[in-house]
């Protein structure tokens, strides 16, 4: 399997990369970890005339705290997310998610930026970013802008990113101390995309849900933010009847394809099962005054 020929570029700065991509237009693609793009190129489903490798740009790497936010460079790998003590402490949901993506070899090279920018509904991080209320830093020839993850995804492989723009990093508001979290993913085997998956962040006060955020993976053309389910759960004690209503509301916004992972109806139900489990586990992890 040999990809179509292309010209390789390795810029040293974001400005240089953006200038190149602006000049190349539709004939250029940014290369991050390559573990979505290169398989597509081998199958000739993608044949860009130019690849702009972002690996030489040091400022795209790393995890740091910035005030109340955590900022993660786009070229930070899944492996680096797993190894980050700062993330393990502040946003353990990311580590839990990364550990369920692909396999060890893929995680050494696959990047957060590639995962969120690709627009593949099978990618896990987009729904997690919606759940966390993250925003993406994007640089183009007209300068920088910030796009909320919840506004970024428009369709399969269709995002708010415009030709010539590079997603340079992800900014995540640090969840409240003591929050509960979970990413529950049903997959057929290691390395598979989700049949369905659910991300949950939860805070509780006096035995009731104070705030709740939910994202769903691979059960529509885009990742889903389950706002109605969140509204139902907020203020509740997470009793069985309320969870059932919230799960029904989450299932109602799904529209999964029927494919090798199962019929659409099954995948919708599995989204509900994953959400139920994620809520249960997130609740068990709540610490501080919210816990019983």
């Amino acid at each position, binding site marked *: 399997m040999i990809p179509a020929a*292309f010209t390789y570029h*390795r810029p040293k700065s974001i400005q240089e990369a953006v200038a190149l991509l602006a000049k190349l237009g539709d004939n250029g693609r940014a290369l991050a970890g*390559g573990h979505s793009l*290169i398989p597509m190129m081998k199958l000739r489903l993608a044949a860009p005339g130019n*690849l702009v490798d972002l690996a030489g740009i040091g400022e795209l790497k790393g995890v740091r705290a910035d005030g109340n936010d955590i900022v993660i460079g786009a070229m930070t790998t899944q492996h680096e997310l797993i190894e980050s003590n700062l993330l393990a402490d502040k946003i353990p949901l990311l580590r839990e998610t990364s550990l369920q993506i692909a396999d*060890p070899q893929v995680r*050494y*090279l696959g990047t957060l930026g590639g995962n969120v920018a690709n627009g593949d509904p099978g990618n896990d991080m987009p729904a997690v970013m919606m759940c966390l209320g993250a925003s993406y830093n994007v640089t183009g020839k007209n300068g920088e802008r910030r796009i909320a993850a919840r506004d970024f995804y428009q369709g399969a492989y269709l995002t708010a990113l415009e030709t010539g723009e590079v997603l340079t990093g992800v900014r995540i508001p640090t969840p409240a101390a003591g929050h509960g979290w979970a990413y529950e993913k049903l997959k057929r085997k290691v*390395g598979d995309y989700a049949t369905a998956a659910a991300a949950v962040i939860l805070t509780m006060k006096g035995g009731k849900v104070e705030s709740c955020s939910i994202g769903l993976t691979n059960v529509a053309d885009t990742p889903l933010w389950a706002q109605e389910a969140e509204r139902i759960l907020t203020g509740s004690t997470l009793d069985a009847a309320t969870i059932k209503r919230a799960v029904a509301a989450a299932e109602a916004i799904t529209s999964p394809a029927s494919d090798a992972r199962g019929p659409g109806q099954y995948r919708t139900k599995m989204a509900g099962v994953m959400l139920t489990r994620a809520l249960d586990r997130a609740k068990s992890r709540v610490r501080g005054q919210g816990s019983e």
Partner: protein
Amino acid sequence: MAKSQIELKVNGKNVEALVEPRTLLIHFLRDQLNLTGPHIGCETSHCGACTVDLDGKSVKSCTIFAVQANGADIRTIEGIANADGTLHAIQEGFREMHGLQCGFCTPGMITRAYRLLQENKNPSEEEIRFGISGNLCRCTGYQNIVRAIQFAAAKLNGAPFQEAAE
């Protein structure tokens, strides 16, 4: 298409070469350097037979272009044995514990296990299974591969190898 000049280190030796940008690392290693230890299995980044060690990471060399490895330090199965030519503890483990049958996955398995044991000197069985989850074996059912890696970990730690109770 113009070729790119790359310089890298492979199994401790400096290598300079001209490559087409679209040349995958696995093809470069096998066809240009005659290092045929890393195997081409699925070619779709699933099976792990092409695994090599690159700058301290286990990577599937079918899913990275040789130009991306410019400046890298790479180790393939050909560079795993000890400097004096004796088998590395992991290789010895695969022999002693019958960690292979047809042998096709073995170079990738050993190269992956090499990095796993660099990062975790005393992995549990579960950690070994999770650590090699990107490498497929269609013969052994993995039991003896896990035992081989446990054997190697014990040997590298200077500890006696004790098989887990059945």
